[in-house]
């Protein structure tokens, strides 16, 4: 199988796959809306009144913040990762393997590349929606600086596409759904903890800090924090470049590997 041709097989029709997934979500919109609405409130309670009462301030990029305001953008960053990744792993796997939804769609003028692209866009859309709702909720507690906070939408689009692609790569490589535990435990969970989400990475030992810079979520949390707190890192252009390049590579890999899995 060629490594380039799948790119040219993607068409506008992939939006129909996106539409299908969106309609399923819409049918149970209330249930789907609850987690992003309530999660920030729980975080504010636990970290604002809980851990926040133990930690008085956090030094970040030469400024001082309350722990809660430091941590809130981390919650949004994690949401971008989780919502995209879990959509294109567990949910896509169920559609692909158990529901045979992809097989059914392939009986129509859509090609396998359209299906993959549709799932990819859908995974990213969930990240954008969830992080958007959380942003609004957090801003009710005064934790987001407007209008700079709007940059989070742009960041969530790129970050969503990236983690949606990483999820699809995982789906393409895991023969069984139980195997998702492995990449989640080895990659996603450490990233959740050590990407500058809940503490600045410069408090880590030097080697660990260097490793943290390799993680995509680190770059997302730098940028999201920049937007929410009006405190951008001087190297933000590197964060953006890192995200754009890894998104392009991961998306292309997702396409090729998923096609290899689906076409026999």
């Amino acid at each position: 199988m060629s490594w380039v041709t799948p790119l040219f097989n993607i068409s506008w029709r992939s939006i129909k796959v996106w539409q299908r997934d969106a309609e399923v979500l819409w049918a149970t919109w209330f249930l789907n809306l609850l987690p992003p609405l309530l999660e920030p409130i729980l975080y504010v309670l636990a970290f604002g009144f809980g851990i926040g009462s133990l930690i008085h301030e956090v030094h970040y990029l030469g400024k001082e913040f309350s722990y809660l305001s430091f941590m809130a953008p981390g919650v949004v960053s994690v949401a971008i990762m989780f919502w995209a990744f879990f959509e294109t792993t567990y949910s896509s796997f169920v559609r692909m393997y158990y529901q045979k939804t992809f097989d059914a769609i392939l009986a129509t003028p859509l090609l396998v590349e359209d299906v993959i692209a549709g799932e990819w866009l859908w995974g990213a859309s969930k990240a954008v929606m969830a992080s958007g709702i959380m942003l609004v909720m957090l801003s009710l507690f005064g934790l987001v600086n407007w209008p700079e906070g709007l940059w989070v939408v742009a960041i969530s689009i790129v970050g969503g596409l990236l983690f949606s692609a990483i999820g699809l790569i995982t789906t393409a490589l895991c023969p069984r759904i139980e195997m998702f535990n492995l990449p989640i435990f080895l990659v996603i969970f450490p990233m959740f903890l050590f990407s500058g989400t809940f503490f600045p990475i410069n408090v880590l030992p030097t080697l660990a800090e260097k490793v943290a810079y390799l993680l995509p979520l680190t770059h997302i949390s730098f940028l999201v924090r920049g937007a929410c707190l009006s405190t951008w890192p001087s190297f933000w252009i590197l964060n953006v470049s890192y995200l754009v390049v890894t998104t392009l590579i991961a998306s292309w890999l997702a396409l090729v590997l998923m096609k290899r899995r689906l076409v026999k």
Partner: protein
Amino acid sequence: MVPAVRGQKLTKKFGKLVAVDHIDFVVGKGECVGFLGPNGAGKTTTIRMVCCYTPITEGEVKVFGLDVKTNPRDVKAKLGICPQEDNLDPDFTVLKNLLVFARYFNVSSDVAKQRAEELLEFVQLKDKAREDIRNLSGGMKRRLILARSLINNPELLVLDEPTTGLDPQARQLIWQRLRQLKREGVSVLLTTHYMEEATQLCDRVILMDHGKILLQGVPKELIAKEIGKEVVELWNFDSETLQAIKDRHWTYEELEGRLYIYDRGGDEVSKEISKLFPNLERLSRPATLEDVFLARAGRSLKE
């Protein structure tokens, strides 16, 4: 005239396994052709290549003159595909399944609504329109899959074992609907294990085994040519009986202590046996496509 399907030297290899081995076949416009054969014969792989599901290793398939390799979107726009397994969308109701499917074909939503209602009527599921897929019986699911495959007014209907596992009523309804579609000019390509299904529906059958075509033709002609008119089955026979049959040069097969004697003429074999061995238990019955199939592909179980 351009046929509905033309396969030439069509081959599919999975690693070293040759699933379909250089087969040539044609489905004429408005014709119903059935692929028969045991599990693993290559029937499903063949139609998967026709439907652009699986890449062709060698050779080619053209659907209404369009090459499936270079024009998969145009080919699939003309096809209605009924897969072997249930892949209805459990996230949607019966009606919504049809509407979402219509959208993949770019059918406008007004047209899709009207067409979906007609099709639900056609497969007798009108009162189930708002039902959850999970609450449908196996037969209802099959009928809905048939309806779904018709949403784009296909010119060629491809069915992979359309009635496997269905009760007789559900099977009759599907057959009746397929005949109706054929009368309306839809070409049909199907696979089946049921010889009766093939005899009932197909203008022509293609017998496959080990990825190759064993023989093809009109069911009645195949039966007459390969078997004859009647089959006499004997059990509890002894060596004397067997010798008598051999002496008369009758064509027969023996399997697991049962003899199948093919009668070309009519009921001569049956008459003669009753004369020779009046007390021997026997069964005389008309020859069927199943006899052709078993005589050619062997009566032993294949895995």
